[in-house]
């Protein structure tokens, strides 16, 4: 073990002076995590601005404004302002002051009360997500209105009397005031999604940990090329000691890379990773998994260039499949299922679990899978890599 530590210490000493290692292990993932979190707004930070033009001023229009639209404002999801005309609202959209304008045309309430089709106008700016939210809210209101119309017609049909406008209006108001019979509530499990900063920090950490981990075990091939491997083997140490030394380097670099990412995204970008003990467990398990995969690749490679290229391909492929570039909740069902074959998905899953407030016990599944990946790939890799040491 002492000789393995001597080998690892020598390698780490060399890596400290190696700027490419510093870049790949720390600077690149940190920079990309920062860029991703800037480019893709998180769901928890979503906020839209709408301007409403109420040209109708009828009871249904009032219901829309005081109901769903006020609800958005109360939930701090959107800022709702008013404008006097469609032209004024359109000017605000064009100027970028608001994300979208909602125009309630003249006769809107009357049309609905008369059982006639009515129309709402959304004038959208470039923020498509905000426009989609507005469209969704109005569509939902439209469904409610349809239900009210059906109810009013049923009520009028039961009385058998001719439609009386005041009665129709009262029935409509009463129907709109009825609370929804089914309320969907979301518990913590359903909401387990880390903030975008945390998510992309974790994604980049898990992507680049493979590049960090490669520096140890790939060094075995470089030592063979340089002749220093033979010189080490001529020393009173066994081949297993040399392999252990290289694996230690990979593990240390992988853990340092991920730890720096966790700390830096927390301090600089405001990421919230969750329970420190559980995060540490996930980081160590992921480092073991990445080291195992890197060792497996080295076991089948002939040169360090070949191994480096193969590890890059494996890391990027697993990253795409494992949800490092987009949340798996937005991925097709098949890809989401496939992602479970990657350590990336299990690590991110663990981080998402922690975002919901869980502790070390919450991420047991992720830990077991990551350690199993590291054990299996590392075991095969070491068996193959032994041939590199002793041809």
């Amino acid at each position, binding site marked *: 073990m002492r*000789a393995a530590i*001597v*080998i690892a210490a*020598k390698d780490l*000493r*060399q890596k400290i*002076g*190696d700027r490419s290692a510093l870049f790949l292990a720390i600077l690149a993932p940190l920079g990309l995590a920062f860029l991703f979190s800037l480019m893709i707004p998180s769901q928890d930070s979503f906020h839209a601005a709408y301007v409403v033009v109420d040209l109708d001023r009828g009871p249904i229009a009032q219901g829309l404004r005081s109901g769903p639209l006020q609800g958005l404002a109360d939930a701090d999801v959107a800022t709702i302002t008013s404008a006097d005309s469609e032209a004024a609202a359109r000017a605000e959209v064009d100027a970028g002051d608001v994300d979208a304008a909602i125009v309630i045309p003249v006769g809107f309430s009357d049309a609905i009360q008369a059982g006639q089709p009515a129309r709402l106008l959304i004038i959208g700016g470039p923020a498509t997500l905000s426009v989609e939210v507005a469209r969704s809210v109005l569509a939902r209101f439209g469904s409610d209105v349809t239900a009210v119309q059906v109810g009013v017609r049923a009520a009028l049909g039961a009385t058998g009397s001719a439609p009386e406008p005041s009665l129709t209006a009262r029935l409509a108001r009463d129907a709109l005031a009825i609370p929804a019979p089914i309320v969907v509530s979301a518990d913590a499990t359903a909401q387990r999604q880390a903030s975008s900063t945390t998510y992309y920090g974790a994604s980049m950490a898990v992507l680049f940990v493979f590049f960090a981990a490669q520096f140890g075990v790939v060094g075995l091939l470089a030592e063979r090329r*340089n*002749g*220093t491997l*033979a*010189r*080490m*083997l*001529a*020393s*009173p*140490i*066994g*081949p297993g000691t040399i392999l252990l030394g290289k694996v230690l380097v990979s593990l240390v670099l992988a853990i340092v890379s991920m730890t720096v990412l966790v700390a830096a995204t927390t301090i600089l970008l405001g990421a919230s990773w969750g329970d420190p003990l559980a995060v540490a467990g996930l980081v160590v398990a992921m480092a073991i998994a990445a080291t195992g995969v890197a060792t497996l690749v080295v076991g089948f490679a002939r040169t360090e260039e070949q191994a480096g290229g193969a590890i890059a391909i494996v890391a990027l492929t697993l990253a795409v499949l494992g949800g490092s570039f987009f949340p798996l909740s937005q991925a097709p069902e098949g890809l989401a299922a496939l992602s479970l074959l990657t350590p990336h998905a299990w690590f991110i899953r663990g981080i998402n679990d922690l975002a919901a407030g869980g502790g070390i016990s919450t991420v047991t599944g992720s830990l077991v899978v990551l350690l199993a990946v590291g054990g299996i790939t590392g075991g095969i890799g070491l068996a193959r890599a032994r041939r590199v040491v*002793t*041809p």
Partner: protein
Amino acid sequence: MAEMAPLLECRDLHKRYGDRTAVDGISFEIAPGETYGLLGPNGAGKTTTISMICGLLRRDGGEVFVDGRPVDIGATDAKASIGYVPQDLAIYPDLTARENLVFFGRLQRMGGRDLATRVDEILALTDLTDRAKDRVDSFSGGMKRRLNIGIGLLHKPALLVLDEPTVGVDPQSRNAILSNVADLSREGMAVLYTTHYMEEAERLCDRIAIIDEGRIKAEGTRRELVALVGQRDRVEMVASGAVAAATTALGALDFVEEATGGDGRIELVVDQARNHLPSILETAAGNGALVKSVEVVEPDLEAVFLHLTGKALRD
């Protein structure tokens, strides 16, 4: 010397790479303090042989013992007695000379003050003390070579294995390397030296094995090897005076096999000419010849190699 208990004992070593036999039944011994040369052309099996001796390569057959202990890839105790100097530089260019020495010293189970002292000694021995803190990639080729050899000497091994240490080395550095090896041998270190340079084998080695196509073709001292091909020393003299009479008298001596003379020159074929030089000069002078110069030309290993393998050493 060979009657001492051998420090290195190789028995019937075999190694194959696919269909090609690299080493085919090599056996030899080296006594403490003996310098033993493996002389052969590139591809003869020298490096494969020493790789098996140093425990770097799995054998297909045979045994190796160093100081009575069997050597294998995992035989850590036996390896502690071996100092290995590979043919190509095996050092870290991005570390300093001292860092290289300390690293390999620690792998040799050295540490603390002993290691620090020994590193200083090696730096002095290799004339690198002033450059100890410099990165190796700033060194000249000769300095790197010296460091490469110094690492092999760190732990004062009983057996030093040098694999063609002078390949690609300038004449000055080569001379220094050969002198160092000779000094180490005089201090009692057993040396296994592979080379394809005949002059180095003749200069350094107490015994030489001529190796070709994975087999030892012949083994012995330089004189024993030369004797195998029946060649004798030649004595070439430039003289004046009674050259013809002196030639006749010299030809009559028991140890002179052949004598020719004329035009101020006398040439003799003699066994072990250096031992008989005083008698030769005395006889020439006694018969009226004034000897102005004398040169002894001994048969070399090139001729032996050609005789044994049918090809030149540098083929």
